[in-house]
Each structure stands twice: as structure tokens, then as C-alpha cells.
């Protein structure tokens, strides 16, 4: 077990060293995070959507900042498994005595650490520059993050599996990305849309994730978001095993056909 954790540490170390060599890119990413936080907070403070947001009992500024901050986690979770199928390194790692689980976690760990840094930047800008008041339920946040990431990793595995077979263009990740931005409760609440469209929001995990995470940021208890927790848990139970089954089948098929690194 310790050996596997240590391997994950070396995956992170490798990615941090690689990342640190792109100095201009780091500067641009930090600036993007700051600029994004400032622009969404400004937009939120001037928009007239307070009526709808009475549902959530938070200001539109808080709504937007939390949505944008945590959408980086969703992005990471959605592309998590795809990152492991880098054809340049896939075969080299698959011939080593390292399990697929360690490989997937190790390859994506740095992405989640970076997402956490982005969340901290967004929330700090919100608090310091726009007076967003946060009262974070840490245990609840971790639970919601775990369930949300779990459900989306299921989609990520389905997308990665398809990508392994068709080699270019992953329709699942593309579709989930679109659904997140329009129906995911990231930039605006789905309640502002016609009811027929709202239904789409209610069947995707992103809606429940963003609803629950916002409430955890303003100090609600886990019991108060039990419906969202149940919905996310149910989606995890269905999507995660389905994704693992599809990913394993596609990986096995590509191995059998000898097309694993044909990108």
C-alpha cells in the first residue's frame, strides 16, 4: 500500500516538474484564474438574478464564484481517465509492475491539486475583493466532491474507452462538457429556463453537484442536502461501474487488436 502511495507521489512530482518548465503558461494560468474570479464576481454583483437565487439563499456573486471555482474539478474529473491514455507513455507504464488504479490516480493527482489551488484563488478573491461571506462545511464539501467526481469519472471512463477505440474525438466528454455549461447549474440556475429544459438538469449529476457544493460553502448541514446526496450517490452507483466496464472492455479490445498506441 505504501509503495503504491509513493508511486502516486512520483507521478505528482513528475507532473509538477514538467508543469514548472512551462513558466509563461503558469503565469497565464494564474492570471486567468484571477481575471476569471474578478470578472465573474463583478458580473454577479451587477446582474439582476437575485430573485431566482432566493432559492439558494446566496448572492449571485457567491453563486457565480463557487460555480466557476468548482467547475475546474468537474473539468479534471471529466478528462481524468483520458489523461492516462497518452500514447507516448501508455505502453511504457503498462509494462511496469504498476496497477491500473495507481496509474489512473497518479496521472490525475496533480490535476486535482491544481484545481484546489484555483478554487482557493477564486474563493479568496471573492472574500477579499467582493465581500463574499463563506462558512464552509468541510466534511460536507469533501463528501459532495467525492460523489460528484465519482459520477463524472464514470463518464470519463466511458469517453476514454471510446477514445481508445476510435482514436480521435471523444463524443461523451464533449457532450458532458456542453451539458455542464448549459444545464449544469454553473453560470445560472436552471430554474430560469423553461420547464422542459429544466428536466435535462435534473437527470445529470452536475446539477446536484453544484447545488450541493454551494450550500456546503455557506454552512448548510449534510442532512439539509440529503436529496442531492442521494441523487449523486445513485448516479455514482450506476455510472461508475458502467464506465469501468466499458473502459476495461475497450482497453482489452485495443490490446487484443494491438492498437493501444495508434494515436
Amino acid at each position, binding site marked *: 500500500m505504501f509503495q503504491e502511495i509513493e508511486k502516486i507521489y512520483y*507521478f505528482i512530482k*513528475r507532473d509538477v516538474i*514538467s508543469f514548472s518548465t512551462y513558466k509563461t503558461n503558469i503565469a497565464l494560468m494564474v492570471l486567468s484564474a484571477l481575471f476569471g474570479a474578478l470578472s465573474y464576481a463583478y458580473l454577479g454583483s451587477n446582474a439582476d438574478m437575485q430573485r431566482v437565487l432566493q432559492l439558494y439563499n446566496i448572492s449571485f456573486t457567491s453563486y457565480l464564484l463557487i460555480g466557476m471555482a468548482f467547475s475546474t474539478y468537474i473539468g479534471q474529473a471529466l478528462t481524468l481517465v483520458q489523461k492516462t491514455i497518452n500514447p*507516448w*507513455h501508455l505502453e511504457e507504464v503498462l509494462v511496469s509492475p504498476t496497477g491500473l488504479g495507481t496509474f489512473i490516480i497518479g496521472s490525475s493527482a496533480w490535476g486535482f491539486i491544481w484545481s484546489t489551488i484555483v478554487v482557493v484563488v477564486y474563493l479568496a478573491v471573492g472574500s477579499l475583493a467582493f465581500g463574499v461571506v463563506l462558512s464552509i462545511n468541510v466534511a460536507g464539501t469533501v463528501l459532495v466532491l467525492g460523489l460528484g467526481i465519482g459520477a463524472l469519472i464514470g463518464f470519463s471512463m466511458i469517453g476514454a474507452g471510446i477514445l481508445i477505440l476510435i482514436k480521435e474525438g471523444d463524443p461523451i466528454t464533449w457532450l458532458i462538457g456542453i451539458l455542464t455549461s448549459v444545464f449544469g447549474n454553473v453560470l445560472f440556475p436552471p430554474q430560469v429556463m423553461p420547464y422542459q429544459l429544466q428536466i435535462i438538469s435534473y437527470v445529470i449529476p452536475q446539477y446536484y453537484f453544484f447545488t450541493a457544493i454551494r450550500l456546503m460553502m455557506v454552512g448548510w448541514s449534510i442532512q439539509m442536502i440529503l436529496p442531492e446526496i442521494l441523487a449523486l450517490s445513485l448516479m455514482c452507483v450506476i455510472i461508475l461501474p458502467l464506465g469501468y466496464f466499458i473502459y476495461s472492455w475497450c482497453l482489452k479490445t485495443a490490446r487484443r*487488436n*494491438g492498437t493501444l498506441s495508434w494515436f
Partner: protein
Amino acid sequence: MSEIAIETHCLTKIFKSKIRNLEPKNSILKRKERLTVTAVDHLNLKIKKGELFGLLGPNGAGKTTLVKILCTLLPPDEGEAYVNGFDVVRQQMDVRRSLGTLFSVGERGVFWRLNGYRNLEFFSAIYNVPRRKRHERIMEVLDLLGLKDKAFENYQKYSGGMKRKLALARALLPDPPILLLDEPTVGLDVISSRSLREFIKNLSEEASKTVLYTTHYIEEASQICNRIGILNKGKLVACDTPNAIKSIVKKGEVVEIRVTSITDAQVEAVKAMEGVIDITSQVEDSVLGQRRLRLHLKNIDSLSQVLHFFLKEKIKLIDLRHEEPTLEDAFIELTGRGLEE
């Protein structure tokens, strides 16, 4: 304890793909046709512990497919394969712990933004090199390959030879008993290639490593390998010591002739002669039209037929030598084609 490091029984790998049929008469439904390629065909092979075994074959002969099956990347369709006594399908982790693998495109598996040392540090972790021994082992391997001074230099600044050596260093890190080296010298200059070959030979002789060395460079295989297997269209057509394989062509005679002013059509005419088993032609000087012909004749009497043709066609003879058969002659004899075909 078994003396066999690598063993295969009736090992077979078939690739199936669909290809587009460009015949305009075919209907849309028939436009894609199934193509089946048997990359490895009922292969039986035994490589002893400590042996440096060369696997020769032209492109597409099945060398890389065999390496990928042995290192657990590809599952076989039929037959069995064992590495260090472990089954490549059922005991994958044990197989991986027994192996160091270098793929023909070794640079792909190296992280370009990390220096040599950091690359090896990462791979030593995922290959379970004990933490306390890690630094010592990395420096030892870098020293063995002459890269110690370049350990902390950016990988992008490495020459082609250094990049191949680093890829080999990665394979050596866990100190595995068996090495699978897929065309390790491909793309290297003469000096780098020679130094890498010598290093691999020493690994087998001094460190008692079993090495499976695939190549399509006949001479390098005959220089360093204890035994050679010739793979053609997935089948092992010969497997013996280099000298024993060369003796396959002993039944004929090999003559090397340097000539000027000979055309391709004339070379073909010589090839069609009754006493000529095979001929290879190499341009030595395109301006003077000078070529080196290597003739494999049924017997030495057949030479008079060839020389008579040269006289008739006014082809100038510069040099003529009776040669010992090489591994390449044996290869052509066995497969009916040259390695570059």
C-alpha cells in the same frame, strides 16, 4: 530450477482489420473488406538463461508483435508464452517484474520536460526499486551507460544516441534477469551503435542477463548473439548459432563481383540464368555506374556463364572474389527475400 528464460508453444497472434475496397463496381455494403494478418504464426521458441538471442526479420516479420506479447502488452490468440517461468496471460505482474523492455521507439516513453535523472527517478519508483537504493542505482546505471555527467541536463539537449541509452537505462533500472530489446540501435550513427552493442554483449556475458535482441541489421546480430532466430511472416524459419545458419548456404558458392556500366535489366538477366540462385546488387558509384554484385551460384562452373554474358554485353569487370557465405545469404536462402524488402 528451469534453465529456460523465455519459452513459447504454438504462439499465434492474428490481427484483423477492415479495409476500404476502392473497386467502384462494388456496392456500398461491400466497400469494407476484412483483412487478416497472422503476425506470429505457431511460434515455438526456447531461449536459455544468460543467452543473447538475436531475432532477425524484415519489417512486418512479427518481431515487435512477439516482444509485445512477451511483455504482456498484447494477448496471444493461441498458444502459450512463459517469461522466467511465468505465464504472460495469467501471471502478468510476475512477468513484468522479470523484464526490462526497450521498444523500437524508446524515446516515446521518456518525459521530455524532465532531465535524465528525474526520468529515471520516476521509473525506479514505478518499477519498485527500493527507496534507499534508488539514487545509488540510478547513478550506477547512468555511469554504466556513460551518461553520469549528463544526468541533470535537459532531455531535449540529448543526442539521439544519448536518448537511446537513457531508454536502455530505464529498462536496466530494476536489474531484471531478462531484457527485451526491440531494435535498440535503430537510427543511431555507427559509433553510438557499436558502443551500445558492446554494452549489451557485456550485459549478457558479465551480468548473466538473458537478452532477446530484435534487429534487421544482420551483421550486428552475427557479431554479438549466441544464437539467432530468423522470423519470416510470423514463422521461425531457422534457429541456430550464426555459423550454423551461414552453413545453410554452403551447398552453393558465393562470388562477389565489382563491375561498371551495368543496367538493372542486365542484373535481372543474370538473375534469370539457370546456375544463379540469387543476386544482390549495390550501387558503389552512381557517376561511374559502378556496382557490387553478390552472386549465389549453384556451383562454381555457373560463373563462366555469367562472365560470358558480361563479355557479350561489354560490362567491365573490376574485381572478382570468392566469398564465404554471410548471414544475409542465409537469410535470402531461407526467406526468398532481402531484409530491406
